[in-house]
């Protein structure tokens, strides 16, 4: 790269710029398959740059040069597509696909993939019972006996490995062929050998894995991210740490009679409470006792008697006030049919990851089909954000002029708030560590009680007004406290969108 800068250029760079202008942006393809390294030539494949394109073919279907170049591109593409999946017998893994349970049992696991893929599951051994049929029976019915565990892959994991050529998959045959028992699967196949085509046909659409979700999975996997299911498909699937999804679960479960009674009572109680609170809040004269306030921020704080936090429940569309009791029940019901559900937990490649105990995810990814799914409604987005944890603010970008402050945002605060806050670093009140996050978690728990409208976080507000205003709130405003990634897939092309929940109430401009 540096050499290119040093070598004097024979032509003016403006010509280059003009050509760039002609192109219509990266999105518009411009793939040059001819620059793809030929099969087996390069030891370390290099991804070539996108090639140049012409505006349009010359009259009559293109000039001779255009046709020649096009033919070359097509040939290069087809040659690249013809590449087979070959792998050494010493590094290939073997798996057996059970269509009845949507899982691939890994017979031989080799390679680094399995440090981030697959989970162990307890299954009845196939030798017990009637041949191979017993495998389908979940062992959960016999809790006492100790059953062997085995490594299993979800459909997307198996399909990805098959597609990469790292896994040879056999389909389990239930038609009485005694092949499963054959000890030496290298000599005799333990089932029907599966091609990549068959794996696509069999494994997509299984266990919630639509083609769209698989494409997002494979896209991120190819880039090195680690992906896990957000909703554990079985009880044995490892659950990410600090997942607030669990707190949401009681809501979706069918309510028992006793549960209904308790919610009724609590609803009544909170109703009464809210009346009290309202009467207390409507003490208008309180706001005029000016002597209590020293700064203008204090005044603005107290003037804000419409609570502006996300803890205030959203008004429901097209539901009258009188029927709120039924609507509060209808709300989770309607949202449960929404396509906007977190499906994948995504981890950066650099995140230390143990697949038996995955840490809190770096990204939450929703996958939707762009052809059938409309834009998310505010209710859907709010429901998504409600289950997400509060993300810490990313470290502020360093400016060239100001001396960089060495204080990382995670370190315990050493300076007392009375002294001037360091200029380079923002110390927002929103991320003071775990006590507040525990508080918000608690509040979120309470929020699930209908009509329980917690007071706006007075403590946090007080904290916010105390120190001098942090220098740059825009990073926090742009990032938001909670972030969700929505992948919209339209027959093969994936677009990723990031939605953040703003924190405007915590960063008052006045």
């Amino acid at each position, binding site marked *: 790269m540096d050499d290119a800068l040093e070598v004097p250029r024979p032509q003016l760079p403006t010509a280059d710029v003009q050509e760039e202008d002609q192109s219509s942006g990266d999105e518009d393809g411009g793939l040059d398959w001819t620059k793809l390294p030929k099969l087996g030539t390069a030891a370390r494949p290099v*991804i070539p740059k996108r090639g140049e394109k012409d505006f*349009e073919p010359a009259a009559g279907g293109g000039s001779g040069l255009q046709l020649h170049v096009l033919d070359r591109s*097509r040939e290069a593409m087809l040659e690249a597509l013809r590449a087979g*999946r070959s792998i050494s017998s010493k590094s*290939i893994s073997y798996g057996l696909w059970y269509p009845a349970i949507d899982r691939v049992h890994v017979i031989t696991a080799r390679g680094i993939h399995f440090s981030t893929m697959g989970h162990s599951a307890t299954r009845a051994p196939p030798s017990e019972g009637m041949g191979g049929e017993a495998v389908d029976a979940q062992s959960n019915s016999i809790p006492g006996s100790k059953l062997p*565990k085995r490594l299993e892959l979800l459909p997307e994991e198996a399909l990805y490995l098959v597609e990469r050529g790292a896994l040879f998959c056999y389909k389990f045959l239930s038609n009485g062929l005694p092949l499963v028992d054959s000890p030496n699967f290298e000599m005799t196949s333990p089932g029907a050998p599966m091609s990549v085509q068959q794996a696509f046909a069999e494994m997509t659409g299984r266990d919630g894995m639509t083609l769209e979700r698989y494409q997002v999975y494979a896209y991120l996997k190819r880039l090195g991210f680690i992906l896990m299911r957000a909703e554990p498909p079985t009880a044995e699937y490892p659950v990410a740490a600090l997942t607030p999804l669990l707190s949401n679960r009681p809501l979706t479960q069918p309510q028992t009679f006793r549960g209904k009674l308790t919610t009724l009572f609590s609803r009544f109680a909170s109703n009464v409470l809210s009346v009290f609170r309202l009467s207390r809040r409507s003490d208008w004269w309180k706001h005029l006792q000016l002597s209590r306030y020293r700064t203008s921020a204090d005044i603005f704080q107290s003037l804000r008697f419409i609570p502006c936090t996300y803890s205030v429940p959203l008004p429901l569309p097209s539901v009258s006030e009188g029927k709120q009791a039924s609507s509060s029940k209808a709300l989770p019901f309607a949202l449960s049919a929404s396509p906007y559900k977190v499906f994948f937990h995504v981890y950066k490649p650099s995140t230390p990851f143990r697949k038996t105990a995955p840490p809190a995810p770096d990204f939450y990814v929703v996958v939707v089909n762009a052809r059938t799914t409309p834009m998310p409604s505010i209710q859907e987005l709010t429901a998504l954000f409600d289950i997400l944890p509060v993300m810490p603010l990313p470290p502020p970008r360093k400016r060239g002029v100001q001396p960089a402050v060495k204080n990382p945002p995670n370190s315990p605060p050493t300076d007392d708030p009375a002294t001037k806050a360091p200029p380079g670093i923002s110390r927002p009140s929103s991320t003071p560590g775990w006590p507040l996050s525990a508080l918000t978690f608690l509040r979120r728990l309470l929020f699930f009680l209908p009509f329980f409208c917690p007071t706006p976080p007075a403590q946090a507000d007080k904290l916010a007004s105390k120190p001098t205003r942090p220098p740059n709130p825009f990073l926090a405003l742009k990032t938001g406290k909670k972030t969700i990634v929505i992948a919209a897939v339209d027959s093969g092309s994936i677009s990723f969108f990031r939605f953040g929940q703003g924190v405007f109430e915590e960063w008052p401009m006045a």
Partner: protein
Amino acid sequence: MSTSNPILLRVSNKKAYVWDIDDVAKLRVCHHICGVLAGTLPHLSQQNVFLGVPLLLMPEEVVLLVEKGLALLVDDKNAHHDPSAPALRKWDSDRLRVVERQLALAEEHEAKEALNPDRAMSEKAILKRKEREEKRARSVQPNTAETSQEIPEESLFANDSVPNLEGHSESLRAESPHRSSVTVPPQTFTSPYTIQVPGASSTFEWYDQSTHSFTTLAAAREAGIWDYPATPAEYARCGVFRDLWEQGYFMGGGIKFGGEYLVYPGDPLRYHSHFVASAIESPEAALRPLEIVAHGRLGTGTKKAHLLCEWDEDKESVTYYSIEWAGFG
């Protein structure tokens, strides 16, 4: 020729794929249908710029190809029959024969190397090889020690048994036969050989599409494998797509440009698109001014004109309007 030998579109989960490379070429060259490559390229599996088979077709492309009689729909899942025992035995024996031939070739190659001692057997080379082996053994030892400590004995069957060896495939390979002696039956081939994971199923004897192919959309719909188009909007999209296709344009997905299709004057491999097309389902459909602004703005920004394609179901015709900034001041 194209009618006598239609392209097979493998349908599973209401998505149509093309697996045969020759069909991919034929679609592109003869029928100017591009589709989107959706699979991992096996030899470049860590990037998303170049992708491989299967070629995933847009539903409009599928409808067009079937209606023109250029393609058949194949119920792919059911076309994969379970192999009979003799078929499977034959597949196994074929496979083993290939492996044996491979090993024989490797042996032959090795023997040739041995016969030619000046290069492989010179003292210098031997010394070097020994040194390399020692180095490898030294680097492997700490790793194996670590991993064997990590693994409790009882979890050998669990996923914990997969070593956490990132980037140490060398050492992994070195120890895997030793470990697999517990979980894996003994292998018969001691020396490594190459395995091909088959891509398309057409090589399988038990793959038979003849009883599972459909020449019309209605038949496929009846069989429950295909249901596009179903709504007026989808009919409009198909109509617009067909009309543009008949005029010789290449079409790609236009979601990143705020429309339904990108319209190319030639193969998208070489030419820029001129238009972003969006289908309007009927002459009565409402069009908001803001849409015109957005389309005009985005089209100008990307050096394309936006095409509003209005589909008239009764006349089965498309009316086109293009939006461009007038450019006064």
